[in-house]
């Protein structure tokens, strides 16, 4: 049949991912029939991640249902998250489910193609040939994108868009263009490109792209309006829910963000990026039980090497400090070795010192005091400033506290931290001082 001489698939390494042994055998038979010589198996999600990380295959045939509450879509998302899948390798979802089509038609992160069981070897070859042709068409663009040569990458896309050979790929070209524009920091262009796609058809992923671009431009109300449309129209498009939550957080509506994330996280219990976002929203809401549970889950179960970062440990320690579980917080903070802490960014060092000063005053206060000049001078993220503010208020260091509060209120993301800042001042009986700071910032804004 398809096993001819010069077969392009003979030298490719295949990986078949399926939890059912009989289905694995069936996929292997089909792969071998189209000429594949090297066909490996993975019987579950973790096994697949391990194999792909150690020796990336050329072609992955992955069943959508992987058992243990895992799906092929999750695997794909995780592979992209850790950049384990090059643009050149092929990821084909195999499914008996019609419902997967609904997923593919909505989301931004899609496999190279999907194929519905049962299918013949000839059909698989037809589909693979098409993907190979498409990847060849985009090859030079992929190279520039990988080098982060965005201007050159966009130039190549423009050439492709106008070429005769590009006609079958015009949506894909626009989609790549919008993503590259976003990656290069040009959110206005990206918005226009997504709108051009919407002018042709109302794809949920393109509408979400508009919302993402508006969010990057800090047009929060407009971004919110767009993403609400997507969430209402495609309730199973969970990334859209994440984006809505991020926008809500920046609008100072952490309670709505948490409500949205709570609901989605229940349905995707193993999405740890979502859990982190949930913890952030819950911390801003003062819901320390939720924040702590979410971060403890992340640290215990986000099992890819390098997945759990120092900021995750700080997030857990933060929820423990605020809940006044100081021994637990100490334990969390001291999982970070001194040498690790020394190599952290100033932002994270500030957070670490501030949290340690509250968890273990006898060890942490001196470190915090040592950083004080830097904390008064340096640019910090709002998360770090809130940590410093919390500790400064507790230590009665008014100058340091008020400095952080002022900068928090002047920052672009002031809405996000406003409620937390106010309640910290209230906690120390300094409501009047807070209002005066607020007035001062408002006056400064008018003068500008």
């Amino acid at each position: 049949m398809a096993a001819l001489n010069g077969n392009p698939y003979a030298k490719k390494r295949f990986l078949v991912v399926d939890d059912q042994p009989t289905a694995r055998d069936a996929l292997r038979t089909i792969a071998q029939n189209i000429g594949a010589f090297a066909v490996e198996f993975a019987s579950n999600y973790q096994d697949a991640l391990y194999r792909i990380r150690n020796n990336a295959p050329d072609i992955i045939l992955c069943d959508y249902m992987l058992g243990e509450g895992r799906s092929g879509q999750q695997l794909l998302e995780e592979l992209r998250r850790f950049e384990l899948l090059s643009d050149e390798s092929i990821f084909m979802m195999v499914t008996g489910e019609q419902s997967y089509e609904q997923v593919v038609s909505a989301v931004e992160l899609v496999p190279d193609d999907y194929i519905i069981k049962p299918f013949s070897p000839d059909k698989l070859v037809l589909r693979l040939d098409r993907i190979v042709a498409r990847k060849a068409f985009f090859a030079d663009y992929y190279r520039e994108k990988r080098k982060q040569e965005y201007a050159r990458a966009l130039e190549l896309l423009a050439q492709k868009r106008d070429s005769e050979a590009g006609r079958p790929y015009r949506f894909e070209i626009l989609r790549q263009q919008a993503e590259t524009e976003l990656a290069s920091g040009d959110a206005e262009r990206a918005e226009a490109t997504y709108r051009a796609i919407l002018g042709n058809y109302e794809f949920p992923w393109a509408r979400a792209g508009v919302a993402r671009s508006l969010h990057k431009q800090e047009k929060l109300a407009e971004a919110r309006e767009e993403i609400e449309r997507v969430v209402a129209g495609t309730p199973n498009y969970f990334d859209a829910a994440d984006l809505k939550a991020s926008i809500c957080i920046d609008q100072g509506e952490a309670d709505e963000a948490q409500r949205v994330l709570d609901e989605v996280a229940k349905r995707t219990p193993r999405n740890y990026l979502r859990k982190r976002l949930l913890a952030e929203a819950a911390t801003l809401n003062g819901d320390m039980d939720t924040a702590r549970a979410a971060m403890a889950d992340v640290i215990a179960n986000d099992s890819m090497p390098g997945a759990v970062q120092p900021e995750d440990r700080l997030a857990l320690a933060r929820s423990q400090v605020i809940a006044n579980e100081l021994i637990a917080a100490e334990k969390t903070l001291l999982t970070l070795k001194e040498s690790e802490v020394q190599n952290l960014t100033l932002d994270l060092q500030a957070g670490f010192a501030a949290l340690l000063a509250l968890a273990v005053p006898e060890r942490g206060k001196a470190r915090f005091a040592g950083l004080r000049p830097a904390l008064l001078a340096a640019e910090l993220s709002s998360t770090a400033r809130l940590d410093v503010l919390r500790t400064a208020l507790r230590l009665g260091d008014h100058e340091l506290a008020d400095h952080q509060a002022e900068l928090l209120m002047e920052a672009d993301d002031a809405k996000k931290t406003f409620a937390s800042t106010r309640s910290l001042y209230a906690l120390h009986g300094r409501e009047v001082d807070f209002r005066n700071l607020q007035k001062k910032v408002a006056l400064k804004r008018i003068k500008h």
Partner: protein
Amino acid sequence: MQTLLDILASGVHDAKNQLFQAESLLVAAETRHGIDLGEARYAIEAAARRLNRTLTAYRLGRHEQALAIVPTVVGDVCDEVLLAQRPHLAAASKTLVVDCQVFDEWPLDRELLTDILNNAVQNAGRFARSQIRLSAGLEDGGLRLTVDDDGPGYASLPPAGGTGLKLAETLARLHVRHGRHGRLELANHGPLGGARFALWLP
């Protein structure tokens, strides 16, 4: 809670997995013995399509299915129908010809549309004397997909509809773009002398 739809969907899912296993066993036998079991594989795929169609019809009837619209190369859909149907028609000494004049991507429900076209070609094959033609073109700002045959034509118009035609009509109507809905048009005395099945999608 398991709804009736969940039970049906999971039954169809399992059956399709088993059909896939059966097809792979036939493929293995073909390789091992150097024989062609294409007609047996065709029957398996036709059974799977029938299961899909039944489930889809049920979902659409209960308004529990939305279309899954993806940018689709129209020529690719035509190629897949050709791949699925030509050997089977050839076995009955009938010819399927594809004439695709659309070169851009079109937003449509790829799997449902492929299924509907497979069904239309399969039906045409039953009545055609020797020829079936699948063509794609642009018309009135939309996409027009046509299946013509050289058989006696529909016995009555509109024909006493089966599930396939009813589904084709619903599928066409559900395709909406710029406020326009798709439609199904059936006619006799087409260019090949027989029945004409035509879908127009916005």
